[in-house]
């Protein structure tokens, strides 16, 4: 009883340290470490050449950053940002651990290769040559399949991780980029179109899932498991999507090219604005937002919770709060719209999120 009370007291008395946001600046070979409370960049970590994506190790002890231009993985302590070790591997552009933690799959965009590494040892198990520009990776929940978007050829490749061979390649539409496993299907952003499509891996049927605007790009499940957030590059917006119905609920107009999104434990979005060198913080509950100046062409982002009771495992403990594109397990949504002639069911009025200055404070322009 007393012990429990002491634990509760300790929890409340423990100093709430600010979360840290890690932002990969692909254009100037650095990682910005941002204090999310003061919204100040507190540190720049130099890397070799060109960092794009990052992922948390299955044990939650490391943040693994891919330096594609430097042919290197950098392992960081997510608590402090200290470099733990470096590993030389070929052109790590996008990378993900399989849900069972056995494999690390790496897409090499510029070398047309997909590599499967043994996660623990980083031994290269298999290298697949792909038709053109393997871009983003997702997994089936049972870790049997890895799915890779092929940007150059407009396809998704399904890699059988047990047999270690490409099982099939499916046309999905022009310039596919972001991909997630979502309730038995794959949701894929098509940069050459306005929409995300859903690919059923069992039948390989492709249907339009929802429309976000020109240059549909990446998609991330929100921490509550009930929302997806999808970006469009040309329209420069983030769409809030109902995870159940795939209906677009709200659209946030955000100049600067929103790309990757991470979440803190309170559901706030941290989106990299690729073309303007900024990290945007957006609270979808209140509409408050701010922008923080980081390095050039910021791409991958991760928020490390540092408040009592949370650690990097937060990244894959909550229903939607998965590391990168890890699968959300839930029943599939009811019927998806047919591929041709799709119109969003509900007209969505865009919400404009002003660019703001690097020091702008949180504010809610549409309330």
């Amino acid at each position, binding site marked *: 009883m007393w012990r429990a009370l002491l634990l509760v007291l300790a929890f409340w008395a423990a100093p709430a340290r600010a979360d840290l946001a890690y932002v990969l600046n692909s254009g100037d070979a650095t990682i910005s470490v941002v204090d999310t409370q003061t919204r100040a960049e507190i540190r720049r970590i130099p890397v*070799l050449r060109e960092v794009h994506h990052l992922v948390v190790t299955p044990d939650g002890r490391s943040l693994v950053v891919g330096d594609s231009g430097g042919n290197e993985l950098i392992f960081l302590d997510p608590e402090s940002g200290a470099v733990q070790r470096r590993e*030389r591997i070929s052109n790590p552009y996008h990378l993900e651990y399989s849900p069972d933690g056995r494999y690390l799959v790496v897409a090499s965009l510029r070398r047309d290769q997909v590599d499967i590494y043994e996660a623990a040892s980083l031994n290269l198990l298999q290298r697949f040559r792909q038709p053109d520009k393997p871009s983003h990776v997702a997994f089936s929940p049972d870790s049997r399949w890895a799915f890779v978007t092929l940007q150059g050829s407009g396809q998704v490749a399904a890699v059988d991780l047990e047999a270690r061979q490409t099982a099939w390649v499916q046309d999905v539409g022009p310039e596919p980029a972001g991909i997630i496993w979502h309730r038995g299907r794959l949701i894929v952003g098509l940069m050459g179109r306005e929409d995300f499509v859903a690919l059923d891996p069992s039948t390989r049927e492709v249907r339009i899932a929802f429309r976000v605007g020109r240059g549909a790009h990446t998609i991330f499940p929100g921490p509550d498991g009930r929302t997806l957030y999808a970006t469009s590059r040309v329209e420069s917006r983030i769409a809030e999507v109902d995870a159940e119905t795939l209906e677009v609920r709200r659209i946030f107009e955000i100049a600067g090219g929103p790309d990757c999104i991470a979440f803190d434990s309170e559901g706030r979005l941290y989106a990299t604005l690729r073309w303007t060198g900024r990290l945007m913080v957006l609270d979808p509950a209140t509409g408050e937002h701010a922008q923080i100046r980081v390095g050039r062409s910021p791409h991958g982002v991760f928020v490390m919770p540092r408040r009592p009771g949370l650690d990097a495992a937060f990244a894959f403990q909550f229903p939607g709060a998965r590391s990168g594109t890890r699968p959300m397990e839930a029943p599939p949504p009811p019927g998806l719209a047919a591929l041709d002639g799709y119109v969003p069911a509900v007209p969505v009025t865009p919400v404009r999120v002003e660019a703001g200055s690097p020091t702008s404070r949180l504010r809610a322009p549409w309330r």
Partner: protein
Amino acid sequence: MWDWIADRYDLFTGWAFEIVLQPLMYRLGLMDWADEAFLWMDFLVFGLIQVVVVVVVCLPLEAWRPVERWESRRKVLTDVAYTLLARLGILPMIGFVLFFAAQSRIEAMIADSGWVPPTLETFLPFLREEPFLALLFYIVVLDFAAYWHHRFQHRIGWWWALHSIHHAQTQMTFWTDDRNHILDDILAAAWFGAIAVLIGVPPGQFPIILLVLRLAESLSHANVRLDFGRVGERLIVSPRFHRLHHGVLSVGAEGKNYGVLLPVWDWIFGTADFHRDHYPRTGDPSAPRAYVEGGWLRQQAAGFREIWRAVRGKRAS
């Protein structure tokens, strides 16, 4: 101050990309090249800034103490065309489009072989935490490579047939720096690409340093009576030092002062000439007329003819 400038630069390039280039790429079905296009636009804007800075610095110097005065500057206009094509990203973009697939294949083959290309920081780990120092190391190594690249351009007959375009200019100014045949540019890309496989490419996050390097290279070609003094002449290639290399008596294999940025390589390998205190006329007396009088297109066409003649042994080196 610098941070403010960098921020304005980012906002401008971001705005231009979002408003102009990206919608165009979407319309053309080229969105999978968006990242490369952003880099190219950065190259273009930065190239424009480079040209402006070089002009602002070099033009007054050339007006102040010119080595030569000419009634007509028509030949200089050809070099202006070379600079704009090279610095505003037009030739690099064409090269990128033509060779990107080949480059991807070559990099993939290298990866397949098990070779993971290292970087200079792999060999000198202390450079990891000091990217600025790493850049300085790269500058030295690449300048050494540039010295030998330049010597081979002069020593190998068919290569000199191309490089002679650079030397044929009799009205040498700061614009002459980019005056090269496109085949010569491709060979340079292959040369430095091979070096990149061995030591990686230098960090690119120090635009001011790159700007200064660019200025130094352009200044070395300037039509100005300027040297850097007894010590300075041995540290950085000056207009006087490089003009001796372009002198009419210093062409082909007879050349001196091959250094691009650092004269130390000429010093070490016995090709330095620090003692000539004169500013010779420039040009290659044996160059074909098109190299001297022609515009960009005519010189490029002549370059193909001359290399063909050289390969067949019908051109005097």
